[in-house]
């Protein structure tokens, strides 16, 4: 029975210097877990995510990471991820080594990782400068046709962390809606932590629904609202207004640190973070 608190799950399973993927493509981003990692002041993580989004903007700005593997690093529909950008441009708060891909390349790397193959293969990166700055992007000759194909090394995180709609009492987890590369990232990892909106008696999964069975899940934590300001289909929608507001909050170091202090370091968990936001007048 892998059910535990998020605090215990991060304490026991996420360690300094590890390769950690908090996945979720716009939907089901495990923000509460990311903030718990910040709260527990993890350092020197190699963070992996297709779209760093605000979650890695917060974690990078808080100084949790020294390496980032990614394929698109902005605030979706708004502009820059200012904290990630400042880490790359100015090395603040710590220098950040980057391993940059395209989405298709990262998807192939997760598929290879989940399959325990050494590399993924695609017709990718055609004519781009990405292979010049990321020597991990290479090529191979197809043994059947002779065609040159692009390869990316398998991505096998030490820990993958996801947010999902629900788990049952045994710890089987159901995801639905936009599911990105979560299943691949989950099965590519050595350990898998999942936060869920609720624990239910039965999942009542449609036959081909996306389920991660309890025996591949290291820990499940029930954290309602744990994907905010991203969303959990069927529970709440994306807080686009917060994504827009983040542009101002994150633009300035001091204001970002103030935000981090009030809503992450000074709160004990995600529920208290939400309470504090509400107490400060944020309509949530």
């Amino acid at each position, binding site marked *: 029975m892998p059910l535990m608190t998020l605090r215990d799950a991060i304490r026991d399973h996420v360690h300094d210097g590890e390769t950690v993927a908090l996945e979720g*493509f*716009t*939907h089901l981003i495990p923000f509460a877990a990311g903030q718990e990692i910040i709260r527990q002041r993890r350092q020197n993580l190699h963070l992996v995510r*297709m*779209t760093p989004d605000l979650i890695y903007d917060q974690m990078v700005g808080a100084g949790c990471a020294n390496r980032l593997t*990614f*394929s*698109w690093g*902005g605030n*979706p*529909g*708004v502009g*820059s*991820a200012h904290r990630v950008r400042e880490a*790359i*441009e100015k090395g603040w708060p710590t220098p950040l080594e980057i391993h*940059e891909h*395209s*989405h*298709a390349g990262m*998807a*192939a790397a*997760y*598929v290879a990782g989940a399959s325990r193959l050494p590399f993924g293969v*695609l*017709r*990718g*990166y*055609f*004519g*781009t*400068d*990405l292979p010049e*700055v990321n020597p991990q992007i290479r090529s191979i000759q197809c043994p059947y046709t002779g065609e040159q194909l692009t390869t990316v090394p398998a991505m096998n995180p030490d820990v993958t962390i996801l947010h999902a709609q629900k788990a049952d009492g045994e710890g089987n987890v159901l995801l639905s*809606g*936009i*599911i*990105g*590369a979560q299943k*691949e990232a989950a099965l590519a990892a050595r350990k898998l932590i999942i936060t869920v*909106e609720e624990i239910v008696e039965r999942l009542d999964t449609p036959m081909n629904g996306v389920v991660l069975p309890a025996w591949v899940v290291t820990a499940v934590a029930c954290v*309602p*609202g744990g994907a*905010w*300001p991203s*969303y959990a*289909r069927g529970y*709440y*929608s*994306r*807080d*686009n*207004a*917060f*994504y*827009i507001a983040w542009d101002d909050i994150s633009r300035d170091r001091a204001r970002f640190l103030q935000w981090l202090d009030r809503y992450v370091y000074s709160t004990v968990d995600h*529920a208290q973070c*939400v309470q504090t936001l509400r107490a400060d007048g944020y*309509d*949530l």
Partner: protein
Amino acid sequence: MSGMDWTPDEMMTVTAARLLWDKAVCFVGIGLPSAAANLARQSHAPDIVLIYESGTIGTRPNVLPLSIGDGELADTAVCVVPLPEIFSYWLQSGRIDVGFLGAAQIDRYGNLNSTVVGRYDAPKTRLPGAGGAPEIATHAKQVFVVIKQSPRSFVAHLDFISSAGFLAGDGERSRRRAPGRGPQAIISDYGVLKPDPVTDEFVLVARYEHVTTESAIAACGWPLKTSEFVEVIAPPTAQELLALRELHARTKAAHAAAVKLPI
């Protein structure tokens, strides 16, 4: 510009929308491409198939998504597939008619930069990165690019190629056997550029009523060539403007709405 009852942004979006046709299978980027594709769907191309890289296929959003994966895109889609699948089974397989992209910078051969201005390892401006665009630019049968024109965005030399257009031109793209034909139109806030069939260099073929050919040339960082006869693009019709403004109004209201967490 006096007497104009539309903005240059609206003119650009309407022009981009007009290039799309009914039943086209269109892989859409966020922002202006998404606005244009949905305007097309809500006006002359009701059965256009819109695909976003978040895995939403055949989506019919009532409001424009802020992000590539807003719930609206999933809720109104014919189906939603995982990311590795959207890039391999649907894009790489050659099922996409039009890839619809934006970028920070473009060069005369339609190569795109959305990665970095300055040196990669010592950036002047670090941009978000390539995302899905490199493979969209490779595999879509053709690509349209929507981008505002200025000497800073239409540049003689790109610091970084994030997505390939015609590379160095003169047939390099086809010699290197790219699966798709590459960029076939650039829609800017001055008009429309199309590639020369021999040199692959983009030339101005059409301009908006409210700009001059000279001003378009001045707003370009390379010596922009023009076709022998530069067409004048018809202004937006009342219906086009109404549809676009209603779409933006619905979108604005939706994005400002407060979210209620169930805790």
